[in-house]
């Protein structure tokens, strides 16, 4: 059974002449323990798919299965949030500026109805490589990479099986990006997590994922394996141009 199955997903915003079809009849499946990448230019609907899964897109149509269970509308059960969690793009915007790391994590654990919150907060911080000395800091006392670690810790609080990663490193420096990507690789190995990762950075997707879908204007052009990506053997001309654009800069170094 696959972790996430999406069939004929349509997401739109606005009504009548202002209607924008952000995602048009998209279907794909992500296996358990797999990393699946969604790539495409901004506005291609890749983040919108993640929003539809988490119930943040108000109007959608089609079928979404998570762990074999059908999702409806924008309401999600508590079980859903124990299975699926999301890490957002911008760690500067996704952490409450007036909550300490401890408050952020304790509240999340409380909502997941976890016992021994005190012990678990420290464990979460250790798991993401921060350690307990960061527990009572505010977000402004953390660097970008440390904030993203806190965001990952928050996502891991409910011990989910599936992580939705929306450009988790695009706001970070390359040196910090390497640390966060290594952390994600380690966590996946330890916990057998399933990743659905959105990025516009092909090398990052190539590093993290097994398979990827290339999106343009709300549609999936093709699904390819990472080996195809490395060899540049794409079928669609748009995916080819994407690959050339990102490997051109690499060949010079």
């Amino acid at each position, binding site marked *: 059974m696959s972790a996430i199955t999406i069939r004929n997903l349509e997401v739109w915003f606005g009504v009548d002449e202002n209607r924008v079809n952000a995602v048009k009849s998209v279907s794909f499946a992500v296996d358990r323990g797999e990393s699946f990448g969604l790539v*495409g*230019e*901004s*506005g291609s609907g890749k983040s919108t798919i993640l929003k539809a899964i988490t119930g943040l897109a108000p109007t959608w149509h089609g079928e979404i299965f998570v762990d074999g269970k059908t999702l409806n509308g924008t309401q999600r059960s508590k079980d859903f949030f124990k299975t699926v969690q999301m890490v957002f793009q911008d760690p500067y915007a996704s952490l409450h500026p007036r909550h300490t790391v401890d408050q952020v994590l304790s509240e999340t654990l409380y909502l997941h109805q976890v016992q021994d919150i005190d012990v678990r907060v420290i464990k979460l911080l250790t798991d993401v490589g921060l350690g307990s000395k960061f527990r009572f800091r505010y977000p402004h006392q953390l*660097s*970008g990479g440390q904030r993203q670690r806190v965001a990952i810790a928050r996502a891991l609080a409910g011990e989910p099986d599936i992580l939705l990663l929306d450009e988790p490193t*695009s706001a970070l*420096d*390359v*040196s*910090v*990006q*390497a*640390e966060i*990507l*290594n952390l994600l*690789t380690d966590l996946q190995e330890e916990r057998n997590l399933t990743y659905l990762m959105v990025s*516009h*950075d*092909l*090398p*990052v997707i*190539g*590093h993290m994922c097994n398979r990827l879908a290339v999106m343009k204007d709300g549609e999936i052009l093709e699904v390819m394996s*990472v080996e195809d*990506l*490395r060899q540049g053997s794409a079928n669609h001309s748009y995916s080819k*141009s*994407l*690959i050339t*654009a*990102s*490997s*051109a*800069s*690499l*060949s*010079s*170094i």
Partner: protein
Amino acid sequence: MDLLSVQNLWVKFPTRQGIFDAVSGISFNLGRERLGIVGESGSGKSMTGRAILRLIQKPGRIEADHIKLQGENLLDLAEAQMRSVRGQKISMIMQDPKFSLNPVMTIGDQITEAFLLKGSTTKAEAWAKSISMLEAVSIRDPERVMRAYPHEMSGGMGQRVMIAMMLMPDPKILIADEPTSALDVSVQRQVLDIMDGLVKERGMGLIFISHDLNLVSEFCDRVLIMYAGRIVEICEANKLHQAKHAYTKGLLNSLPRLDRPRKRLDVLTREDIWAKTDSLRSL
């Protein structure tokens, strides 16, 4: 002659622990070329860009032997005179369209605003020029975008709107602070080509601030690598892969690459000495 000459520039912020040097005595010249400044966040690259335009907020201080724009020392100008430099002679493309665009003004009003303030043009001309600039940064349906508000734009579109806005007055020097970090590779290329064209056609100087080593090595003529407010290495952009400084090498190695798959990425190890040695003098 050099368009811009910066000599011994310091940016200082007083803190409770004493003076913090965001930029520590850097010197460089800019001709009609594309100069890249790379480094991590906090390395002082954005502060350098802002200091040239004297945009450092108090209590921050700018100190330098000189910052000369075509022979004229910008440090000697009064604040009112600086206003005719900012935007008109030296234009700056800011990092984040979310914070740099006015959320309650339409794109059209914002793009034409500065242009109309200069006088001498009618609203219709400004509108027409804006449309053509938006087309130049490859925005589809510019008429609709002109009437839209920033929250209706995606990040990439917002960034292109900003670039269009900054190019309106035909500046001599363009300071681009991470202009393409919010864009995807395919659009990045288009935007860079536009900027490249401007630098060549109009003889503009470009200071390109970025953390993306690949991009800078490919797009710029010369690269300054900054660490802790200092220039640690200066090299020809196409020779970046021969870089000697351990920091530059570390940054290059931490990039994931399609052609060389690895299980884990190398993590940069920092050495204290990097932040203690004096800034390199520009060639």
